[in-house]
């Protein structure tokens, strides 16, 4: 879960990292009432990247300019996303832009620190980063990072500040369950001090049971989602809308992707990635059907589940029930396999439902329905 800039900066400030003093405004009007230290930077608060290049940061030298900037930014979209407000900070006189991040990395068996003496857009454009593997947070070693930086950062005082800062970021990441803490640019001011001009903090959603702020943020994020996605999330279904017409109800990420690939190979387009494996219950499946039945783009539903822990006789029984009570006329194609599949086949057969032997067969059947227009 990527935090918005001002949220990320609040976490940084909480561990004693220098961030510019900022105020968040949800509207241009509330901004107009504040006393600000002009010149200021007015920054659109969006989670998507590339904000700078998209004009999401505007300098303002007066209240009128600040209000105008806020109005403009709040009306824009960045990567399809409307800003959740603007962050207004003193305009920094940056001597040099650095890059520093801490991120979870499999090759490091834990955290890795990444650094560049030239940050900002240069890093966004792919400039090489110096890397220092850490592993578990307690294995951070200032001297190792210092050695790694020796070749690329000529300014010894900056190097020391970066080392101390990196240690804070590693501790922040581990103590608050962040998978990435990225500061780009890390601004070096005229006095050599370092200020986090931006912040990209990603928190681990799986830690929500022990981090109330993550749980709250997830709830807030869910509430912001379009209705169907929000309903899916509330029902523990994983839904990503795609642009096609084959409504894929599936279990397991790998098998879902395999089915999507097969659909595409056969000339079709999946309407969604809809993984029910976290909630393979009557309620979960009913919700899945309901979501797809309510989406006009969907012409046919393909149920593809290969269950291990999920017992397919139970799934078959649920499918039978859903098919008998369902009002939609949209055709449904099945391919169920896995634990207790023999009983599942019996149940489906008795209910007059056809279970395809292979996913290829099921995809072919679904495509023929889709080509026939679906929704008989």
């Amino acid at each position, binding site marked *: 879960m990527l935090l918005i800039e001002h949220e990320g900066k609040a976490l940084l400030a909480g561990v004693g990292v220098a961030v510019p003093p900022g105020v968040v405004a949800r509207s241009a009007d509330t901004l107009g009432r504040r006393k600000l230290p002009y010149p200021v930077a007015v920054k659109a608060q969006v989670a998507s990247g590339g904000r700078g290049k998209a004009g999401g940061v505007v300098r303002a030298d007066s209240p009128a300019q600040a209000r105008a900037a806020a109005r403009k930014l709040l009306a824009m979209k960045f990567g399809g996303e409307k800003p959740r407000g603007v962050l207004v900070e003193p305009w920094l006189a940056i001597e040099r832009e650095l890059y520093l991040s801490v991120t979870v990395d499999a090759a490091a068996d834990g955290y890795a620190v990444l650094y560049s003496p030239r940050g900002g857009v240069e890093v966004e454009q792919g400039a090489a980063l110096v890397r220092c593997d850490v592993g578990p947070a307690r294995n951070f070693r200032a001297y190792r990072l210092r050695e790694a930086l020796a070749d690329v950062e000529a300014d010894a005082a900056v190097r020391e500040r970066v080392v101390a800062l990196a240690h804070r970021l590693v501790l922040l990441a581990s103590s608050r369950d962040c998978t990435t803490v990225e500061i780009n640019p890390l601004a070096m001011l005229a006095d050599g001090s370092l200020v986090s001009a931006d912040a990209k903090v990603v928190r681990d959603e799986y830690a929500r049971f022990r981090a109330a702020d993550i749980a709250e943020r997830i709830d807030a994020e869910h509430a912001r989602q379009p209705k169907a996605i929000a309903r899916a999330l509330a029902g523990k279904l994983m839904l990503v809308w795609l642009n096609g017409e084959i409504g894929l109800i599936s279990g397991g*990420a790998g098998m879902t992707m395999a089915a999507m690939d097969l659909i595409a190979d056969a000339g079709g387009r999946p309407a969604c990635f809809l993984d029910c494996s976290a909630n393979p219950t009557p309620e979960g499946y009913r919700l899945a059907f309901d979501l797809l039945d309510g989406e006009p783009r969907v012409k046919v539903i393909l149920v593809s589940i290969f269950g291990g822990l999920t017992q397919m006789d139970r799934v078959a029984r649920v499918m039978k029930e859903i098919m008998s009570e369902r009002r939609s006329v949209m055709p449904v194609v099945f391919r169920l396999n896995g634990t207790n599949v023999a009983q599942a086949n019996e149940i489906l057969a008795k209910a007059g439902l056809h279970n395809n032997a292979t996913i290829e067969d099921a995809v072919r059947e679904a495509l023929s329905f889709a080509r026939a227009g679906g929704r008989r």
Partner: protein
Amino acid sequence: MSVLIHAASRLLVQGITGNVGRFSTRDMIAYGTRVVAGTASGRSADDVGGVPVFPGVKAACAATQADASIAYVPASAAFDHVIEAFEAGIGLVIYPGDELPVQDAIELRAAARASDAIFIGPNTPGVISPGKAKAGFMPSFCYAPGPLGVISRSGSLSYEACFRLTGAGLGQTTVIGIGGDPIKGLTAAEALDLLHADAETRAIVCLGEIGGGDEYAVAEYAARPGAKPVAALIVGRKAPPGKKMGHAGALIGSHADTHSAKMKALERAGVHATGTISGLVAAAKRALAASR
């Protein structure tokens, strides 16, 4: 031979009294696995399917000499249980659950190393050595003994893949679910090393997907002199970038994460790679043929 789990493995089921623990215990016993003990934290419980239940791992090991464990506990308790198993001297611990905080995965991988143990997971159906034993909840009928070592990031995909391989007469030595999360107890590279060292494994099948670096470890292995032939299936060719596809690790963030970059790297390394499940059996056959 097989790797990780054998006919003689003495399996402990942590959290045996939960619904999943009960179901899986009976299922593993039905497969012929020697499930010797279960634990139910701090509670006394009756046996489950004839398996004695202990209040802690130390007591279970002392009474039954369990040497491998699978933990059916919620993510919030996973760290505690896996560490307990390590410290009781268990050499192989599988955590199949998902939604484990990455922090805990990092700590458990480090703890496994410190205990000279192997941690597998999170987010895996487990490990099966067909015809010998299984520690996990994969559907048994999909597997048969044979010459292929299989590594998978995805549970459902491994069922489908092995179902096809078995159907085509291509059995398996051991099928290892390494899991779909970014930090894994057993990495692809480590799983490859195990299968490489196993005399009965003649060729290796890797089931991969977009995102993460495991497939590059596969390419690295395959390019090594003396490597066993490798077949690979990479799914997610049509997944949109920037969206998490169910697995925490299945996300295209950079070019290296993409399907085409992975396919290229695998092909360059001489892997019999395919981008579709329909091509898997043929790829595996080519790999097996190359092993002769």
